[in-house]
């Protein structure tokens, strides 16, 4: 099975008819075999080894960069006074943003009873976890002395008798991100339990069965268990929904609480959340499209899923566009000299080209999603998503650097240039992220089997 491209599945149905959520002819059995097969297959496909090898190389690069950083200090990066925050924070916000789609899909869409979420929520959640892991790296590295940051930021009774400073948004960040990671992990984890049971029961060798047996914790599909399980799942969804909104709001407060013109603004939270979902869905597509293609999952991740993601991207993209225009408008309308200076700096300053590329990536390019043709053509979607992803990174760069490089006193205006170490760290995390993702695909059911079963017609109880 696996890697053959069954194109006919990607053929658009006649007008007015929406593509199905699950390809025709799937039964409880086939679902189990097709998805479980990826994990239990005897032979791991060659492309998997190639990709993992590449990622391991990038991961090595990341570690080199980190080691050198710990040895020398953040001076190896481009940061300076006035631009005290550079790539580290840009990447942090970017990764955190990406990490939003997962929980959003699994939680909010679940609450809205969106059936189509089931075949993508599992790896979307995994994506969330891995993205948050990348994000989590940066605030620590960014101090250059993580061995201090690691424990002074948490309220631990040390002999100094001093504590974290809870008025600082950075502390809010510490709590928000760590909570977000934990909750996402739990959510993902309990979702996996029944599927581990499935793997346990369908695995061939005793060892594999034992391994998944332990992970499944003895799940046996009892009605009483299912009942509590469902409640817990729903509750988590209910908790994760405000959480996912709060996390990026808190991240946005890292900026909004400051006095720096361009940061000091009240509409950052919604603006950031929208942006996060925007980039999150872009990332979902960037993972889903190759995944369904490489593993022949077109039956489970159908055009319907791609289209819906595309629509969500379009919607959030428009919110983002609105935010940009508001930023400019408020700047002009406030008639505050610092705000005006900011607008001026963005449009005509030394970094103006960054700003215009950003506009193209996040506002112009996504408009193509109005076209059904674009929404239904995987490879185009993939490219659009990539553009959006770039744009969202640039957005963070603009917010961080273009606000700091010219703030209050002209005497201290400055420039920021990234170094090769900055780049190595950024690309390294991309490699790390992909590595984790492909390990996940190989060893865990990338699509929620038990939930998918519930969608099949035969699974309904007839009266």
């Amino acid at each position: 099975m696996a890697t053959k491209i069954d194109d006919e599945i990607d053929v658009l149905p006649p007008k007015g008819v929406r593509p199905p959520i699950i390809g025709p002819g799937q039964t409880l059995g086939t679902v189990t075999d097709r998805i479980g097969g990826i994990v239990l297959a005897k032979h791991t496909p060659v492309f998997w080894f190639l990709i993992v090898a590449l990622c391991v190389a990038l991961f090595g690069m990341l570690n080199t960069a980190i080691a050198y950083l710990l040895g020398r200090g953040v001076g190896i990066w481009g940061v300076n006074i006035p631009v005290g925050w550079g790539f580290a924070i840009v990447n942090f916000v970017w990764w955190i943003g990406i990490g939003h789609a997962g929980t959003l899909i699994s939680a909010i869409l679940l609450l809205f009873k969106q059936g189509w979420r089931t075949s993508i929520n599992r790896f979307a959640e995994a994506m969330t976890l891995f993205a948050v892991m990348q994000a989590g790296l940066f605030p620590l590295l960014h101090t250059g002395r993580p061995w201090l940051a690691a424990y002074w930021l948490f309220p631990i009774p040390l002999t100094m008798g001093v504590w974290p400073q809870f008025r600082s948004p950075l502390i809010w960040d510490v709590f928000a991100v760590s909570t977000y990671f934990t909750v996402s992990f739990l959510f993902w984890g309990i979702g996996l339990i029944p599927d581990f049971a499935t793997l346990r029961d369908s695995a061939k060798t005793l060892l594999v069965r034992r391994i998944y047996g332990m992970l499944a914790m003895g799940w046996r599909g009892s009605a009483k268990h299912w009942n509590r399980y469902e409640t817990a799942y729903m509750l988590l969804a209910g908790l994760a929904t405000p959480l996912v909104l709060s996390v990026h709001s808190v991240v946005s407060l890292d900026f909004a609480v400051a006095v720096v013109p361009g940061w000091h603004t009240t509409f950052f939270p919604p603006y950031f959340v929208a942006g996060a979902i925007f980039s999150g869905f872009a990332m979902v597509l960037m993972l889903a499209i190759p995944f369904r293609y490489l593993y022949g999952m077109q039956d489970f991740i159908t055009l319907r899923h791609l289209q819906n993601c595309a629509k969500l991207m379009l919607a959030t993209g428009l919110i983002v566009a609105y935010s940009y225009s508001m930023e400019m408008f408020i700047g002009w309308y406030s008639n505050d000299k610092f705000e005006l200076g900011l607008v001026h700096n963005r449009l005509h300053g030394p970094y103006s080209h960054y700003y215009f590329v950003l506009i193209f990536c996040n506002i112009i390019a996504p408009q193509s999603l109005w076209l059904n043709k674009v929404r239904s053509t995987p490879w185009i979607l993939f490219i659009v998503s990539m553009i959006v992803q770039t744009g969202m990174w640039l957005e963070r760069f603009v917010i961080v650097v273009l606000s700091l490089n010219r703030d209050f006193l002209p005497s201290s205006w400055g420039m920021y240039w990234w170094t090769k170490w900055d780049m190595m760290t950024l690309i390294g995390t991309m490699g790390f992220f992909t590595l984790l993702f492909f390990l996940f695909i190989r060893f865990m059911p990338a699509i929620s089997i038990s939930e998918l079963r519930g969608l099949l017609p035969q699974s309904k109880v007839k009266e």
Partner: protein
Amino acid sequence: MSNHTDSNPVLISADEIKPASPELETVRKKLASATGKRYWRTVQELADEPAFGELLQREFPRGAGEWLDPVSRRNFLKLAGASMALAGLAGCTRQPIEQILPYVRQPEYLVPGKPIFFATAMPFSDYALPLLVETHEYRPTKVEGNPQHGASMGATDLFAQASILDLYDPDRSVNITYKGEPRPWGEFLGSIRGRVLYHNANKGAGLRFLTRATASPTFGSQMAAIQQTFPQSKWHRWQPVHRDGARAGSKMAFGAYYDPIYKFDAADVVVSLDGDFLSGSWFPGFVRYARDFMSRRKDPDKGMNRLYVAETCPTTTGAKADHKIPVRNSELEHIARALAAKVGVAGAGGGQINADQQKWVDAAAADLMQHKGKSIVVPGVFHTPALCALAHAMNAALGNAGQTVTYIDPVEIAPVEHLQSIRELVDDINAGKVETLIIIDGNPVYDVPVDLGFGDALKKVVTSENGMIVQLAIYNNETSEYATWHVPMAHYLESWGDTRSFDGAVTLMQPMIAPLYGGKSANEIIAIFTDQPDSSGYDMLRAYWRSQHTGDDFEAWWRRSLHDGYIANSVFPAKQVTARLGAVPPPPAVDPNAIEIIFRPDPTIFDGAYNNNGWLQETPKPLSRGTWDNVAYISPNMANEFGFFVLETDGIATSDSQKNVNADHQSDSQNVIEITLDGRKVKVPAWPQPGHPDQAVSLFLGYGRKKTGTVGAGAGYDAYSVRPMTSQYVGSGSIQLTKDHWDIAITQGHFTMDTREPVKAASLQQYLDNKQFAHNPEEEPKEADSLYPDFRQKGWYKANAWGMAIDLNSCVGCQACSVACYAENNISVVGKYQVQRGREMMWIRIDTYYAGDPANPSVYFQPLPCMQCENAPCEGVCPVGATVHSTEGLNDMVYNRCVGTRYCSNNCPYKVRRFNFLLFADYTTPVLKLMRNPDVTVRSRGVMEKCTYCIQRITAARINAEEQNRYTEGRIDIRDGEIKTACQQACPADAIIFGDINDPNSRVAQLKAQPRNYSVLSEVNTRPRTTYLAAVNNPNPELEKA
């Protein structure tokens, strides 16, 4: 008052505690093996450091300097690993066992942990700046001005502040060498004795001495003695930044050499003909003059003096002028003549000047005439004799002579015109008349006029079969390569001596520490020739003054003099002389097309003597804000013609042209032009300097060294290489655009205030019309409108509340405060590349802003320390509370708590916070540890730092006051002025005032009560404790109308 640990300073003269100074030899030996402790309490303690347990301290990485050393960088992985291992346990790391080494016999006056102050003086050029030096266990750590001495009034210039670093400079010469081979002192002595006998025989024929100008009476007497023993010997003088023009001018006017002394505090109108008396010590008396001049601008309500300046190369003097015209060098003398004619100097006139200059001259002349006897005409010291003569004549004609200007005998011993003197020497050498040449201090091979070919001349001497050159110098410099014998020279803080301040007062020098590198003083070297080879500097000094002192109270008198640092009533009496404008040569023809090449000493490196001083290299030049290089000023117009990037003032070049991008702070890539003068060429980075005259280029001396220490190596271009005898300060040459570029590390890239108006300025009239001009009611938040609680209600800021007021009127932008801060607070030097990256560490920087027409803009200086905001934006955002508020209103920075998020810096509207992006502090060079101020933490990698209002001085004073049981209404009664911050203490213009704002009688409280007082960026509502007194200038209404 310079003592910050005791209300009346422990002033002690070193001879009272002879045995005190610790055994430096052993210290030095042990230092070699010592590893990095962050500071210590006694020298002995330092001298024996336990090397083990380094890793345990990794979370404030001691000796982590190895990162910077490429060799051990290889094993950084291992060490990083170690630090990671400690991560979890950092709270639990044990301290290594440290040792403590008491004295064997503790000197009587020493209280361990308390500084002692000694009076001494720093020789600079041909005169001296009287000083008090703070020593900790006999390690000099900080230099202050001697408040009891009129030449200092407690202030210093940046060179004095930086001289501490020179003392400890590890690059200093350490060996007596013979043709480059190390030799013992005895062997040197032997070979010189031979010479002495030889020259005794031939009456000193062929025996020559070359020194810089000196004002040391003792040295003078020694030279006189030499003249007697060796009648045929000659004493030549050379210092590259000489004042021959002024000398000749004085001769021209008075028929003899005299030094003018100005009384700026008594002058209502000052006209400067390129007289750069507000910039640096190359103008004798700068420190005192800045104080005097600014004393007339402190309170506009009491009226102000008025300053007219006509200048060539832009200086801070011009920046402070009420009316400035940029003129080309050749035009200056014409202006002088026109002015002289107008103020009624007979025989003047004949100057052709253009309309603008005419207007300026008319106004200035009118003003001068209205203030006869209460005005001054200041001639530049780097100009033609005629100009100086004219100035003297004008002062005479205006009746200023004797009132605001007096004349004294030159402080230089046996004054000569240096160019003449050095020329004679070279001629004699070429004529083969020189066998033995003793070069004391200085670096002639580098800085003697290039067309004299001094190097080649020296070669002749050394290669001649009986030739010998002895060099006494602090560094191994270009000249050392030619010397037969090189002897390390003792730093002024290591040697006994005497000299005179600019007003002639004798100041005594006493050593703070035994010579670190076994240096010898000039007197000791000369003594060899006067047959007292083993007499110490102290003996000679004492002997000389014994002979000078009449009266039988010598001992008491001597002790008092040493204690005070100067000899009472030794100021030169004013001479009754009248300037006769005799045969003044006709003014030079002005060639509008010729390019004038102007030579000036560098504002921070001077003539090259401070080339290896990291503090001075990193101190921005006041006008260009450039560091680590010298540039060539050209006018914005010329830059335009060349199509260069033009430095913005708000008259031109909006800050957004792409051209301007690289001008944003950090690395500013400048076009390189090639200067040709007398057929000699040098490539220099062109710097478009607002206010620079057209058709002229200003070059700065002291850079482009071929042989210097690790710090100065490779910095800048060598202006001496095109400086011939005929054009010592100006010549006519040509410039050629080249393709090259030159990265200049500048600390400020935007010189326009944009819309921000950090500096509020007005004319005297505007001020009198609206005293509140510095305030903008719409923007300034009221005390009431704040969501925050009033911490005064909670008992904060109740007792002592520290504040600072900075008078923008007074600040002359001389940078003394910045360097003083480096010395007081152990600030690290980061080097050119890091400055380009925007990582300089300066705690108090001076922002320079230009406004108006770039051809002749108004210039504003604004010293910017930490504002110590009561609503500090930096504090709220720190996640670990590493920067928080003290009850006295200080914005505390807790280095050991900082994890380095840099959020505080981002959120600081004034950008006064500095971050240790790498391990900038030098933990490895042992000798630098001796220099550090033990009361201030040395900051390590990854730590934010900033101005603390010199918290260590505040604490010391508070403890002192409490122990003396001084309290008044709930406050600890610390007398106003008892605490002086380092910047305040150094400031010659008295522009920075610090004190307790809760004490209504304190100076700072009274200044803050003035209407001129405003806070920068008040609209951000940070409520800064550091506020500014708006700049008010005093333009001539006549010119205003025009």
